[in-house]
């Protein structure tokens, strides 16, 4: 008789232990530290002290409400765009990709082999005011002659969409790929039109992918600052830019931490509402 046979009740805890330890070390501890920092005040010169400085929160909300709202808007639009682009794309790969499936998927992930920063900097060149893309858009009348793409909200949202697209595409692909095609055939045998079969069978079955994809895209996108910094102007700056500069430039750690905590809280609330609306049980497929 082994130890675990005698103490069966222990087994789940032992199995959970590595995960719990991981969560504790890399989630609970940093979160505690972040919250602790968010209630500190001081400067590099005089040092930082814990003073229950709640004003870090009130000033953060008062001064940076614009950037908060902008972050959620940009991230929301980018998530929606990524979904609209990814769904047909992955649908086609999953159902029509045949033996090219793996290769096509690789193409989606390929940009990830280049660092985030370089990819975004490349867009700075591609969208440059005198560049080919802008010239063509001007020729087509989509951009006014003295207009530009770079350093506008359009460029920032496009950059976010581009950079986070694989986070949307991969979970979508997985859930679409798993759909048993005979279910769709059965729907058609029962006289469902292609549209109806899609709406009643494919779409509901792919919802776990949609939910996972939107969450995986929206959450990092809301905290992003690279796209706004490289493709935007101060008028496009998101909350990530503020946090970055508070942490690294102004070394105002208290405010920076407070802003981070608020961002987490806002995202958490949005996710709870979202999953309530669409139903988390669908995540389980």
């Amino acid at each position, binding site marked *: 008789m082994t130890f675990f046979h005698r103490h069966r009740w222990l087994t789940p805890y032992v199995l959970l232990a590595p995960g719990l330890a991981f969560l504790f070390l890399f989630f609970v501890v940093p979160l505690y530290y972040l919250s602790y920092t968010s209630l500190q005040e001081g*400067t*590099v*010169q005089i040092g930082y002290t814990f003073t229950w400085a709640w004003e870090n929160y009130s000033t953060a909300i008062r*001064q940076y409400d614009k950037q908060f709202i902008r972050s959620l808007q940009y991230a929301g639009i980018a998530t929606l765009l990524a979904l609209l682009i990814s769904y047909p794309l992955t649908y086609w790969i999953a159902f029509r990709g045949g033996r090219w499936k793996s290769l096509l998927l690789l193409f989606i992930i390929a940009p990830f082999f280049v660092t985030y920063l370089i990819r975004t900097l490349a867009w*700075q*060149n591609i969208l*440059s*005011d*005198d560049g080919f893309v802008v010239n063509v858009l001007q020729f087509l009348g989509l951009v006014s002659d003295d207009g*530009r793409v*770079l*350093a506008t909200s359009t460029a920032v949202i496009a950059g976010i969409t581009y950079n986070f697209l694989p986070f949307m595409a991969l979970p979508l692909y997985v859930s679409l790929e798993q759909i048993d095609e005979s279910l769709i055939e059965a729907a058609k045998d029962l006289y469902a039109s292609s549209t109806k079969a899609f709406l009643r069978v494919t779409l509901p079955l792919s919802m776990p992918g949609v939910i996972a994809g939107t969450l995986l895209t929206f959450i990092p996108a809301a905290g992003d600052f690279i796209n706004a910094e490289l493709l935007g*102007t*101060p*008028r496009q*700056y998101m909350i990530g*830019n*503020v946090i*970055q*500069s*508070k*942490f*690294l*430039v*102004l*070394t105002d750690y208290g405010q920076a931490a407070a802003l981070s905590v608020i961002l987490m809280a806002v995202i958490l609330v949005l996710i709870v509402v979202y999953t309530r609306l669409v139903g988390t049980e669908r995540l389980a497929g």
Partner: protein
Amino acid sequence: MTHPFMDPITRRQLLRRAAAGGVTLSLPGLLAACGGDGGIEGQQPETGATGATTVEQVLADEITVSNWPFYIDQNDEASTFPTLEQFTEATGVKVNYLEDINSNEEFFGEIQAPLGRGQSIDRDIIVPTAWLCARLLRLGYLQKLDKSAIPNIDNLEDALRSPDWDPNREYGLPWQTYITGIGYDPKKVGGEITSVEQLLDPALKGKVTMLDSVEDTVGLFLLDMGVDPTDPDPTAFDEVIAKLQKAVDDGQIRQFTGNDYTGLLAGGDAWASIAWSGDVVILQADNPNLEFAIPDAGGMTSVDTMVIPTGGDVYTASTFMNFFYDPEIAAQVAAYVNYITPVKGTKEAITEIDPALAENPLIFPTPEALENLYEYSPEAIEDTEVQEKWQAVIGA
């Protein structure tokens, strides 16, 4: 008004240590061969008043230097740095040269955490602007130079010998003195630029970049209003802030940048930028139309200074500084970077490279030109309220 060039010259008695220096220059190859792994500990010799070479003066195998982009000579393909190669040839010390300072504030943010814990930042030399050097010294993040390894310190220009933050030059030596003015493309702008006010012309909407450093950008606008930036008046400062905030809201200003404005200016996305003198000359290789102008009302200036952060190898770093205080070497750097050199004798040395360079007003400004350059008050840069107002404008 005071600025670095016009300071009353207080000639310091600098100890001549030619003998020690001679040893330094002739032995390094040998020393490097037995220099071990170039570790950090145990290689910071206490230099006595006599400056005698101590046993600990051993060169490391490699030195890591953090500097600004476009701040050292490069070969035509921009793939190697000739003077750094010469340094390696002369001393056997390899140079790991990083162009990773984009703005003083950003750089401080990056190095503050480890230095604050007393840890090394894996750099032997960094080259921040004078006001940041002063802050680093105040926070105890810097090590003293080993002057016994820097006999060439005698070549330091008199006007730069005694800055307020380091009156005896114990902690830092100037790398270059820069001028902040306006870089622009006259063809796109449609004429000459002589004042920063022109950057707010609606014809340039969205084609203007400004520096994210308060001393450079606000300094130029204060000068334009006739206000002395060496002791900025708070009301005038607020006026400039309001003016710039409006320009941001109107979409007039495309971006506030660090040294990375260079890409936008060379590529044509920016038509006019608040810029540093030498950068614009180097960018002319990409865009020959570009010009650099010091506004009629005056330009800003300060001294980017080589300092040794905690953990840096003092002796090797000092040897490196000594090498760049040789006028022949300084001339090669100046000929490429086009900034004001702090090394005496460079003018003579540069004539051999190209006599025209000796007349270049960006490297050797006339006394009248120098009188029209101002250094922003370091106390004002360090003022929390000033920084908060400024950061609010530049988008954070």
